[in-house]
């Protein structure tokens, strides 16, 4: 079953639009949504959450439409936005009390464990927290009500490397429960290494690719070429070509289809997530 299923999603503003977004996140997996600042990551999250109203398309969460079955759909979601906390004068304890009051499955033991793990004092007021501490508190809230789909918009932003590592580890721990799924956005591809099962790249409001890690590892390659074979750039499996000091670096999504068109001794490497993003966003 798909935790998240998006088809033909369109949302237009005067100077920016999400165009024909199609996305599937199967249950039990982590998907990393990568894109430059302003690529459309936050707009996509806000549209999924119905904070922004879509122009066209369908969004389903565990089979529930995000507008017609809004309450059902959202009861399965934990969402951490870019700016997770407000109400600066109110203590974390009160914030938690208000938050927990609407979730029947609230897990107080887990929440307390996360607070002590993150070293957060419940008596502290939100305005006294650093950005990183706010994110940690937001994550503690988001993970304590047993949501099935966890949506995190730039959860690692504002965190130091140690905290970043801690948060990423925590997300992996969450996936021990195979009924849960996570979609998180970042503009730092290293956040995804070793954690994301799916990589999705968004640029200028369009999904450039969305692929499983195993398929990337089996089929995707970066080829180092001195010259470009005639007509190769028009092949649909060529995802991006970047000129380099030695010639060209070419990213393909299916090496088997290009074997006969390239020299036999061509160097072919499995791309990391940064390679894929650079070739697809910057490449021709």
């Amino acid at each position, binding site marked *: 079953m798909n935790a998240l299923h998006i088809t033909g999603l369109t949302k237009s503003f005067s100077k920016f639009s999400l165009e024909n977004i199609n996305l599937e996140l199967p249950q039990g997996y982590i998907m990393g949504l990568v894109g430059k600042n302003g690529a459309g990551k936050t707009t996509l999250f806000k549209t999924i959450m119905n*904070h922004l109203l879509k122009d066209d398309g369908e969004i389903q969460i565990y089979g529930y439409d995000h507008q017609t079955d*809004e309450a059902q759909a*959202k009861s399965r979601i934990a969402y951490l936005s870019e700016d997770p*906390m407000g*109400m600066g004068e109110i203590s974390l304890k009160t914030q938690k009390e208000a938050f927990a009051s609407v979730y029947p499955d609230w897990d107080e033991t887990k929440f307390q464990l996360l607070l002590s793990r993150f070293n957060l004092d419940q008596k502290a007021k939100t305005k006294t927290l650093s950005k990183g501490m706010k994110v940690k508190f937001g994550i503690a809230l988001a993970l304590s009500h047993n949501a099935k789909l966890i949506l995190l918009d730039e959860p690692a932003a504002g965190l130091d490397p140690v905290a970043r590592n801690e948060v990423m580890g925590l997300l992996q721990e969450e996936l021990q429960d195979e009924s849960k799924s996570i979609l998180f956005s970042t503009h730092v591809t290293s956040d995804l290494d070793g954690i994301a099962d799916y990589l999705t790249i968004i640029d200028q409001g369009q999904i450039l690719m969305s692929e499983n890690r195993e398929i990337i590892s089996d089929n995707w390659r970066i080829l180092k070429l001195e010259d470009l074979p005639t007509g190769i750039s028009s092949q649909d499996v060529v995802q991006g070509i970047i000129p380099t000091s030695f010639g060209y670096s070419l990213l393909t999504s299916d090496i088997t289809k290009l074997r006969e068109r390239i020299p036999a001794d061509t160097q072919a490497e499995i791309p990391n997530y940064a390679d894929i993003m650079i070739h697809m966003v910057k490449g021709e």
Partner: protein
Amino acid sequence: MFEIMKRDWILIRHKYLFLLPILSMSLVLLFPKADEGYFVIGAPVVFTFSVFVFIQDDTSLRQLLSMPFSRAGIARARFLSGWAFMGAGMVYIVVLGFGLGLIYPEALKAFIQHLDLKTLFTYLWVLSGITLIAYPVLFMFLGKGVQALIAFALGLNVLFGVYFLMRFNATGPDIFEVLKSLIISLQAYHTSPLNYLTSALTLLILNGINLKLCEWIFLKKEF
């Protein structure tokens, strides 16, 4: 819906509740003889409390929109929270009126004179009149935080500006006189059980229409 109201209450009780005794005490002290001015000034004061329910922190509203509620449910809860808060304000003023009566017996006598069903209905009509205009405006500004307050302040300034300009040129009505005569008419209407029933039904229908309008505005909003 009641879960939303409960959540609102948890957040608001720490933030704004201290204003309630201050404002209501000023009200009772200002109008110990409790004539029609009690409605003219009192209703907006009590209404102000309900505004605090609406204009919460932007992030708090976005958090609410991320919780397991439909937009229509949130709109209904906001509407009813406003009325519930106004109701709480009215009860508080009554309690405080009795409390102050221990110190100012004359004020208590005047206060008790107005504690009847006729007064309650008049009060509900005045508050409904305010909310018919103000709630849709507040729904339009929901989630805009400080901008909403500025817009409200500007709007009020313009209204008062126009009003005083008209009064200065003696072309407009004295709004307080108009309000007073409206209130007197309302009180005079509530004499028979049938009139009370008609009044209650009309209030329900008016507020129902207002609620639907607010829901419609909220469903069209983006955050």
